[in-house]
């Protein structure tokens, strides 16, 4: 019944069914192949667009980080200058007045108080100087990164139970102040964190310079971090210091890696691209 109906319809239309089916099959094949081709081209275009978008986003993020780091450095510089020039000067003047004070007529108790005040002012002057230097290292500016790291390590471990060894590659003489400052801040933050949280007995900092990058290794025998712990902590509000480290690493286009060695010690590896 159906066949008859189809035949009748085709006779009316003066068409041959075999020809129609052949054409239909060819058309279906072309349609399917064309659809697949278009889909693949479209997918590739979408991916390219997505890639461009993420690159733009990354660029914007880097610019934001850069301006945040710059403003932080500017603020540090301003506070360091104010501490050094104003508070430091005021304390020094106070010390002069205190030293020049006639203490012969004072009672024994007052003499002791006078000596105590002088001692406290001396300590304050020292503290202001340390804070000011930490906020803005003049050694870094004048003598370079290696000397600044050596000075920092000597200062931070001097008089404490922590020992440190510094073995830096003196070939490193890059005059890029921004890179030096960022690396110095990373080292500063890392070592401060180590002393505060890892409680090591020994910290070793060493560096080596190749044609393309500066490798810095901080090895210690405290209770350090693994890469997984670092990744986890840097997204927590408490891990602000680690976030700052990561931001500076992103700016430098470098890499940081935390590893626990078989010996039980920990090592932090920094790779910073440099142009010699």
């Amino acid at each position: 019944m159906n066949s008859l109906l189809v035949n009748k319809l085709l006779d009316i239309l003066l068409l041959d069914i075999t020809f129609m089916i052949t054409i239909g099959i060819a058309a279906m094949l072309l349609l399917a192949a064309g659809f697949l081709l278009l889909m693949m081209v479209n997918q590739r275009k979408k991916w390219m667009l997505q890639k461009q978008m993420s690159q733009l986003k990354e660029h914007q993020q880097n610019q934001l980080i850069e301006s945040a780091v710059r403003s932080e450095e500017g603020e540090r510089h301003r506070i360091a200058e104010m501490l050094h020039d104003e508070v430091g000067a005021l304390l020094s003047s106070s010390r002069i007045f205190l030293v020049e004070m006639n203490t012969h007529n004072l009672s024994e108790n007052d003499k002791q108080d006078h000596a105590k005040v002088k001692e406290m002012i001396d300590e304050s002057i020292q503290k202001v100087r340390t804070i000011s230097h930490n906020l803005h290292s003049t050694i870094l500016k004048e003598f370079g990164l290696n000397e600044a790291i050596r000075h920092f390590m000597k200062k931070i471990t001097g008089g404490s139970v922590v020992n440190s060894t510094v073995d830096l590659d003196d070939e490193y003489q890059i005059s890029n102040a921004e890179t030096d400052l960022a690396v110095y801040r990373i080292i500063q933050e890392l070592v401060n964190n180590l002393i505060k949280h890892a409680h090591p007995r020994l910290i070793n900092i060493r560096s080596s310079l190749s044609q393309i990058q500066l490798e810095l290794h901080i090895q210690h025998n405290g209770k350090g971090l693994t890469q997984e712990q670092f990744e986890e902590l840097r997204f927590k509000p408490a891990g602000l210091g680690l976030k700052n480290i990561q931001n500076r690493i992103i700016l430098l286009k470098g890499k940081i890696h935390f590893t626990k060695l078989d010996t039980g010690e920990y090592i932090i590896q920094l790779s910073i691209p440099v142009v010699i």
Partner: protein
Amino acid sequence: MGKILEGVLDWSEVWATLIPLIVYIWIKPKAIWTRPLLIYLLIALLLGVVVDITWKSKELGIKDWVERTLWWLYRGKILYTLIFYNINSFLRLLLLTWFFYKVNPLYKKTYLIITSLFLTGVIINFGFFENIVLSFSSRLFTIEAAIILFYCLLYYYTVNMNDEIKSPLALPPFWIVMGLTLYTSVNFLIFLFYNYLINAERTYAMSIWNVHNLIYIVLMIFIAIGFKKAK
């Protein structure tokens, strides 16, 4: 030359099925979505061997043995092997639904509804309208092709929505879905008109089945590539 080509195409449902099976044994892909395909290939191979051996039993000199073994498929002097095609089509849809559920699980409800409707349709069709042994069910094959094509489109939609995919060709299931798209779209019209053609234009119907065999070889090659990439 023509005879050789004819022989190659006639036996394609056997030797072509072996291509992805050999790749599977060689690669041993661990992806769970390869399981339904493996079962489908084994069933297709078994049914392909049975159909081709019975069809070529006279040339192979095993006609008596076939008559003795498959007596239940004879109606008078004629042997009907169409039941194997119908079973293959039915099982293929179920196994491919399982495959699509594994590679594109977003549409679980859709698969469930379509499979339920399909099963109901098959029972009604073979219960009241068509004989599963005596006829090649154009309805079953056409609906199966349409459903698979629809599943393929759902898969493409999911891939297209994912901006992370650089090239879909890097996805192993994509090759298989691509093969299925070509297979079902080309065979849709063949399946739809085959019952009519086998009565009205027998020679044309026989030759158009070669197109089916050709695209079946393409499908098997694409499945093999999918398995290879799923390593």
